[in-house]
């Protein structure tokens, strides 16, 4: 049972345009959502997070939108740059008491930004 789903395995975008990466989830107990970027042979790099009580969080070129009623979140990258080409993972956390959080990841979306 996949609780976090990224239905698009890949996405190609022209440099300078907007990249929109999507993620759906099923567990209404998730309280934080995160996006990670991963280059080959490296670990995932934390990009941005959003609390379940918010509907938008912005950090530079990256904006995450959360639609709780639809159980959907998206990451917008504007403008897209060739260095953004990587695999992007959506992750969600559930609190387990005493400040403990476990992350559940989607399978990732490979973004290719074409110069």
């Amino acid at each position: 049972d996949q609780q976090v789903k990224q239905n698009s395995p890949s996405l190609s975008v022209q440099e300078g345009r907007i990249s929109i990466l999507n993620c759906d989830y099923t567990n209404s107990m998730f309280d934080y959502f995160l996006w990670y970027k991963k280059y080959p042979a490296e670990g995932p790099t934390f990009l941005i997070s959003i609390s379940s009580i918010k509907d938008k969080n912005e950090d530079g070129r990256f904006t995450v939108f959360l639609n709780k009623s639809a159980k959907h979140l998206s990451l917008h990258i504007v403008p897209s740059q060739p260095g953004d080409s990587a695999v992007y993972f959506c992750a969600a956390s559930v609190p387990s008491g005493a400040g403990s959080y476990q992350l559940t990841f989607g399978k990732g979306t490979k973004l290719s930004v074409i110069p």
Partner: protein
Amino acid sequence: DAGVTQSPTHLIKTRGQQVTLRCSPKSGHDTVSWYQQALGQGPQFIFQYYEEEERQRGNFPDRFSGHQFPNYSSELNVNALLLGDSALYLCASSLTVTGRSYEQYFGPGTRLTVT
């Protein structure tokens, strides 16, 4: 500011053997989580250590065990290796005392191949 480090980078083992992977958390972090990433999948939570104790565990058999040392570094041990244990093993660190331990920072991973 030192990030999360892991050793070794790559490892080849034979079925039935045992393996130990090591992780040093990001400077100032007190919590270490371990994840397994199979090819084409997102990372899957194995367990989390805080104050030298395992405080949360994912759906992994008892062959997977760990330890956290007083300096917050951690080890992941896998006994009786199976071919299916071949994967990238990721260590992530976070800071529990801030209440933001959902924000986890990953190391580069250890690529384990079981033959």
